[in-house]
């Protein structure tokens, strides 16, 4: 039983890491109806920029602020150069544009900072917490717990922002109906800039945590693929959905690996989430928390 809990907790915490990536997708999808394929590239860009600035001898907090600034600039430029000319085009056109953006951002990041793998130390060790280990004999990684804490703060802040602020409300309004939002004087350009900046910030946080764990390298781009089953499970439009989806994916893939892996020769965790997502699509295509499409009959 202890072993079960250890696997479960480890899975849940690693799920939080997926949630971070999924969160960036959700934000942009919610506000502009665009599935931003470039989110993974943004994570990579953010992490690499942060490490690059750190290497120049800049202190941690300043580097964080500068990297955030770079993400905001990237967001504004994306809005101006990519999204604005495509206003009122079908969603698939915007989606294609974000695929193009992916390659551009990947290239830009490597052109600016080089392609070598770098380490990143946030000063928090990936080791079991002593007193929990002593009391319950369950190993809980300090780093994972820290990541979970960051996720909790981030999600609470975002949820409050969307629900109760003027800009948050406007963001949801734009997500529902661009044209109507335009007609009541909400400036779409500003809204999109804000969304891309926030998504950039989330990408930065995700990049730092993933980078600290696996090293800042090109493979970060592919972590974005792990976010897909999370999104399908949690729903494309829900911030809490991204978190819950991440937890479910994380824990189920670890449990499946440990308990079912031996029957099929292991390696189950790399495909299990996709099977789970596929099964979910059949039952509840809008995801656990996704907004149902409201149609009046």
């Amino acid at each position, binding site marked *: 039983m202890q072993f079960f809990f250890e696997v479960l907790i480890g899975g849940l915490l690693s799920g939080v890491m997926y949630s971070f990536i999924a969160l960036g997708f959700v934000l942009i999808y919610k506000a502009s109806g665009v599935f931003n394929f470039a989110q993974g590239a943004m994570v990579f860009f953010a992490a690499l920029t942060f490490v690059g600035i750190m290497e120049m001898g800049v202190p941690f907090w300043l580097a964080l602020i500068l990297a955030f600034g770079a993400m905001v600039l990237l967001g504004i430029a994306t809005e101006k150069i990519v999204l604005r000319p495509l206003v009122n085009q079908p969603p698939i056109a915007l989606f294609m544009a974000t695929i193009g953006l992916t390659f551009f951002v990947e290239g830009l990041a490597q052109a600016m900072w080089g392609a070598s793998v770098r380490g990143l130390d946030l000063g928090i060790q990936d080791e079991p917490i002593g007193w929990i280990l002593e009391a319950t004999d369950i190993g809980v990684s300090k780093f994972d717990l820290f990541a979970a804490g960051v996720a909790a703060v981030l999600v609470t802040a975002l949820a409050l922002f969307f629900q109760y602020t003027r800009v948050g409300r406007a963001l949801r309004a734009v997500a529902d109906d661009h044209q109507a939002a335009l*007609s*009541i004087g909400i400036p779409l350009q500003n809204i999109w800039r804000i969304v891309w900046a926030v998504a950039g910030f989330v990408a930065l946080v995700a990049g730092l945590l993933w980078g600290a764990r696996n090293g800042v390298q090109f493979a970060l781009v592919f972590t974005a693929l792990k976010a897909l089953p999370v999104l399908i499970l949690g729903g494309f439009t829900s911030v809490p959905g991204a978190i819950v989806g991440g937890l479910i994916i994380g824990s189920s893939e670890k449990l499946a690996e440990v308990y079912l892996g031996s029957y099929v020769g292991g390696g189950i965790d790399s495909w299990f989430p996709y099977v789970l997502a596929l099964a979910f699509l059949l039952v509840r295509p809008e995801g656990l928390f996704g907004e149902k499409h*409201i149609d009046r009959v």
Partner: protein
Amino acid sequence: MTTTTHQAAESDSYLTVNNIEVIYDHVILVLKGVSLQVPKGRIVALLGANGAGKSTTLKSISNLLAAERGDVTKGDIMFKGTRVDQMTPNELVKRGVIQVMEGRHCFGHLTLEENLLTGAYTRSISRAELKQSLEMVYHYFPRLKQRRMTQAGYTSGGEQQMCAIGRALMAKPEMILLDEPSMGLAPQIVEEIFEIVKNLNQSERVSFLLAEQNTMVALRYADFGYILENGRVVMEGDAKDLASNEDVKEFYLGLSSAGRKSFRDVKHYRRRKRWLS
């Protein structure tokens, strides 16, 4: 008309559309020189069949055209003496001109109250003032208050229309461009909505330019009317005169002195060539 009286009429009017031509997608000519005026504090109806250019006229004033790849290529639009045809919708709403779009376009996943609150986006006001505006809207639309916590997507067509008008009111407009408020609504609800429009016009001094296919109802509540056909104004006049005009009766109200007519007997309407200014 002498020049002096003409100029007096010009300065009297509040919103002036001068001979505008609108082209969609660089090729489709939709408006071929439309001119109209809305005096302050009045209700003006823009009438005509499907595709006559009513919505396009409204959208060229509110400048929602750009988002549909339409463009005002000739003529100009003046509001209170300023040229407004190149302004963004955001600037126009701040100046007091707001459009309520055809088909309501409420934010389906937001509650009715949240819908109303988004209407005040362009005003930087305190919570108290926001509350006050909200109460003002609820005063005119008590039904919205009853259902304020319901997601707009689950409300009835009439409630959505009220929500859309209420949302526009939250921006404290001087002039509302109302596109097809009767669309898809039961006659009783249409009356209710027009009553509220009249009421708003009288008590809040909001001017209205409304596009309607329901000619009969629109002319009953409006002060003045324009009839559009194929992107041109073919007739204009006081609402009362229009409602009693034989041709209008025949073409738009389906009434005729000689009873039902065959299409063969319908006379060809000679358009006034007022667009050649």
